[in-house]
């Protein structure tokens, strides 16, 4: 079932616009973007629990977490509330530094994904915070190898964002065994503890 839904979605993306901007592709997709944005923007603002985030809406957070878990092999123990907050803040800051068009593409992607209809059409039947990792893996596989460049671009841009943002988090750094800067230089650094796990 889910495969055919994904196929349906893929087939209906206008492949003839061999233009590599995700945003443009989304605008041409079967999911009316305006509807997605209208549908999502109101509750998102109402539910805003993290006012310090500039680009990421509360409804985007479960999407990012779901993709991060599957893509980087993380679990709930890694993503404690505290680590999750730092991780999402890192994603938000990184998005702030990205070129405007890349940021716009990512926001469009998140807005599309948060729309239940499009999530369902991509083969992920449950809400993002309960989604089956297998569904997400299948979705990612389809995006990467389904032959539509823009979907691959969308996932790979998202992945880089997630990876850098996660490996900026002290607990993730600690997991790599990286000990921080050598002892010899530490006394001279404006050392705020973030340099090492």
């Amino acid at each position, binding site marked *: 079932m889910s495969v055919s839904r994904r196929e349906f979605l893929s087939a209906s993306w206008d492949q003839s616009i061999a233009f590599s901007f995700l945003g443009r592709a989304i605008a041409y997709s079967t999911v009316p973007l305006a509807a997605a944005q209208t549908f999502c923007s109101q509750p998102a603002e109402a539910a805003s629990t993290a006012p310090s985030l500039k680009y990421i809406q509360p409804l985007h957070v479960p999407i990012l977490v779901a993709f991060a878990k599957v893509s980087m092999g993380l679990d709930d123990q890694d993503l404690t509330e505290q680590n999750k907050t730092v991780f999402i803040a890192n994603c938000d800051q990184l998005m702030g530094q990205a*070129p405007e068009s890349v940021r716009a593409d990512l926001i469009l992607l998140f807005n599309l994904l948060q729309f239940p209809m499009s999530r369902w059409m991509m083969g992920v039947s449950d809400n993002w915070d309960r989604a089956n990792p297998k569904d997400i893996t299948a979705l990612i596989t389809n995006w990467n190898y389904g032959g539509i460049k823009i979907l691959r671009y969308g996932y790979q*841009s998202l992945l880089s964002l997630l990876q850098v943002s996660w490996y900026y988090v002290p607990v993730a750094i600690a997991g790599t065994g990286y000990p921080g800067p050598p002892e010899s230089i530490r006394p001279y650094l*404006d050392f705020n503890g973030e340099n090492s796990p």
Partner: protein
Amino acid sequence: MKLPDPYKDEAAKSWNIYDASRFTEDRYFEADVVIVGTGSGGGTAAEVLSRAGKKVILVEEGSLKTSTDFNLNEKEAYSTLYQDGMTRLSLDGGISILQGRTVGGGTVVNWTSSFRTPEPTLNHWNSRLRIKDHTVESMRPWFEMLEKRLEIATWTSPNTNNQTLLKGAEKLGIRADLIPRNVKGCWNLGYCGLGCPTNAKQSMLVSTIPSALKSGATLIHNLQVNHLRSNGHSVESVEAYGRSERRPQVRIKAKIVILSAGAIGTPGILLRSTSIPNPYGTAGRRTFLHPTLFTFGRMPDEVNGFHGAPQSAYSDHYQWQDVADGPIGFKIEATPMHPAFASVIIRGFGLEHRQRLNDLKYTAGFLALLRDGFHPDSPGGRVQLRPDGSPVVDYPINGYLLEGAKRAVLKMAEILFAAGAKSVHVGHFQTGDYSSWSEAQKGINQLAFEPLILRVGSAHVMGGSAMGPDPRDSVVDETGRHHHIDNLYVMDGSLFPTSVGANPQLSIFALTAKLSHQIIGDGKIYLDLPNVSTNH
């Protein structure tokens, strides 16, 4: 405890430094020379022209960060010292591009490898691209001077990561050697990419820019040049704005305008400057990136590739076999391995990716730079403007490059096994952990070498405002002067008509030193060299 920081010295109090993000009103400046961009090219030109007595203004869109600010934290360094917080991509996302954006440009974050422009490159420019002024012979004294100026010498204490490259190459009978670096009293920490905290790295930030400031130059940072205004023959003013919410406008008038904003920034300014003639559409064309591939080996013992000078060994064994007519050549080097950076170049999905990151301490990392721009099938990319006016390079990755990418990845894997790797994985989304060379060959040959799932990076942006004799295929002449605008020069990596075929900083230092001396034209040397009184 504090280490010396030239910008915090008593003497620095008399330097003319402005932070344009603090301008509360629009401003106007005048000078003999305005230099846009303070990296390898801009920094070098600033020293020469200021010491020759010109009134110089240096403009930089990044902010002034100095050794006291460098705390070796990846997040802080990438977000304050790099273009787009290190998220810069080519148009279709296929190549992630690292460039500096701070006073000192790329030299503040680069890995200190200092190669002369390879002779085959200069010969190719001469024989095929009709570059007559910058030959092996005429460039030699400039390389020698810049090597002296920036303390460039072969680094003889390679870290384990670089030793792995030397060891594997030796086992296979592949030529490999040590790299000269621009350092003075280097602590061998390994953080050149995050800003050197000891000022050992002889970046423009601590060498030529202080020297220009001492000679009376003015530095304006957090000032982004939008465009140049010209009357069709000369530039009348440089139009810029301060990087703050208020966006104060700044106009600078100067007799000479030098663009040194790097090989994406300089073509970007030219394209935004609609009054600068571009009759053949050459601005932004033929941009080269040394498209870069990655391969990793799980070694039996700790490698700790995040510590120790990041690059100190290389192999050119596969670089020059057929300069212009055959398959693409590549240079192999080591890569630093700090966690966030490694998390992006190390590939894979889910737990596999996590395991590879968990093995970071034991992982040796190599990269291969493809020598683009020499063969007709390697036309490079093109800088264009996004709707918001920001420059982006469209660089299609074609079959010619992908063939070289596969060969490069295979060779790096072979070297890693020869050096004793227990397993190898490559910078490809579908990579396996191959436990023998034969398994790796089989596995790598089965991978789809396609953009985006293959990690392609670049830290060397070149071309786009190429020098050359013919305005139909170049932007400036061999003196760096714009073909159509008398008082406009380009002095940065965008001058190169192909990629360099080696890490480019010394090529840029030497060429821009030569060109800025030509502007003065009195035969004297104005680089801050010990005991120089020679004419050239």
